[in-house]
């Protein structure tokens, strides 16, 4: 006739149980032991450089909270530089502090790029001005005229600034002694780009 229904059901159940046992048998076979470790999390540092402009006294982080580059005024209307006379110079400075919370070595250098000098109100003062810079330890040294070099496209790069260290870049603006008297009362805007870069701390070099 055929295999009774109950027998067929029993055979199916037996087959299912057998297959189930076969699939999990690996976890029962032989001895096994486990240990686990939690290495934790690696966190990266901040790259935070704070700038202080003199004589304005303004303070800002180089990078703003929204990731944009900050703009720092070294002079303001209330704290202006002395008036220039032909052959004379005025000085200002910016100090940069390396505020990184890096765990290891993290030195930076700050580079002042070529200045952009633009006349205010259609004057022609810009062409008679030279902008120079030097890297010193304290802002007080800016008033000594030695050590200044004209800022070119190569820019001025400071010495290494370690964590929590500060460096000062002095700027000197000099009016040519050949400046004509027609320039009297004119003004310029001077913009100097500053860039902070991490210095390689790897003994074998950073390729």
């Amino acid at each position: 006739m055929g295999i009774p229904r109950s027998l067929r059901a029993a055979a199916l159940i037996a087959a299912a149980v057998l297959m189930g046992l076969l699939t999990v048998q690996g976890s029962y076979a032989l001895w096994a032991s486990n240990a686990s470790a939690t290495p934790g999390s690696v966190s990266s540092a901040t790259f935070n450089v704070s700038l202080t402009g003199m004589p304005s006294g303004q303070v800002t982080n180089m990078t703003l909270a929204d990731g944009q580059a900050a703009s720092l005024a070294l002079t303001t209307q209330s704290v202006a530089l002395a008036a220039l006379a032909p052959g004379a110079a005025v000085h200002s400075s910016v100090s940069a502090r390396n505020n990184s919370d890096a765990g290891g070595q993290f030195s930076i250098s700050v580079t002042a790029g070529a200045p952009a000098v633009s006349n205010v109100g259609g004057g022609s003062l810009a062409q008679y001005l030279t902008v120079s810079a030097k890297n010193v330890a304290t802002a007080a040294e800016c008033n000594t005229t030695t050590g200044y070099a004209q800022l070119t496209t190569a820019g001025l790069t400071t010495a290494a600034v370690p964590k929590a260290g500060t460096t000062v870049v002095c700027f000197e603006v000099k009016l040519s002694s050949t400046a004509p008297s027609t320039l009297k009362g004119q003004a310029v805007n001077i913009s100097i780009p500053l860039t902070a870069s991490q210095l390689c701390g790897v003994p074998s070099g950073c390729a």
Partner: protein
Amino acid sequence: MKNTALIKGTAAIAVGAALLLGGGGTLASWNAADNAAPGTVVAGDLNVVKSGTGAWKDRAGATIDIATYKVVPGDKLTYTQVLDVTLTGNKMAADITATGTGAANGFTPANVIVSGTVLTVDGEAVSNPLTTSKTVTATITFEFKAATTGRADVNATYNFGNVAFTLQQITQPGLA
């Protein structure tokens, strides 16, 4: 008729039982006894445990606290965890493996190089299976590439999650 067969069967059983009872007389003959000592069967051992807590070191080999250390481009950190592996048994053999779970990478993948867990014995890569007790060293390296540009990945976090070490006995010839 049926009663006759029942009576015959009962009689036959009775006769057989009587014969068996009569056989008891053989106990009176020679016999001898001796003892054997099979000894004691002792089980081996298989175990893997951490030997102390794992430690992170920087590129220079100085120990750092990973909870407070902040990496910058150019950093290369190494995590080391020593494991004591116990293997006892004449036919003992086991494979040790490491499996990482739950890792979460908050860095730009192109800016970091994170190794898998490397297992070594005496500075040489582990060659499974192990047959005797060993000290196994598990190592993970994390490198923040010096080629990282701009301010990429400041304040990022890489969570290594859990690393599980499994010591699994394997079948040797002679074991079923």
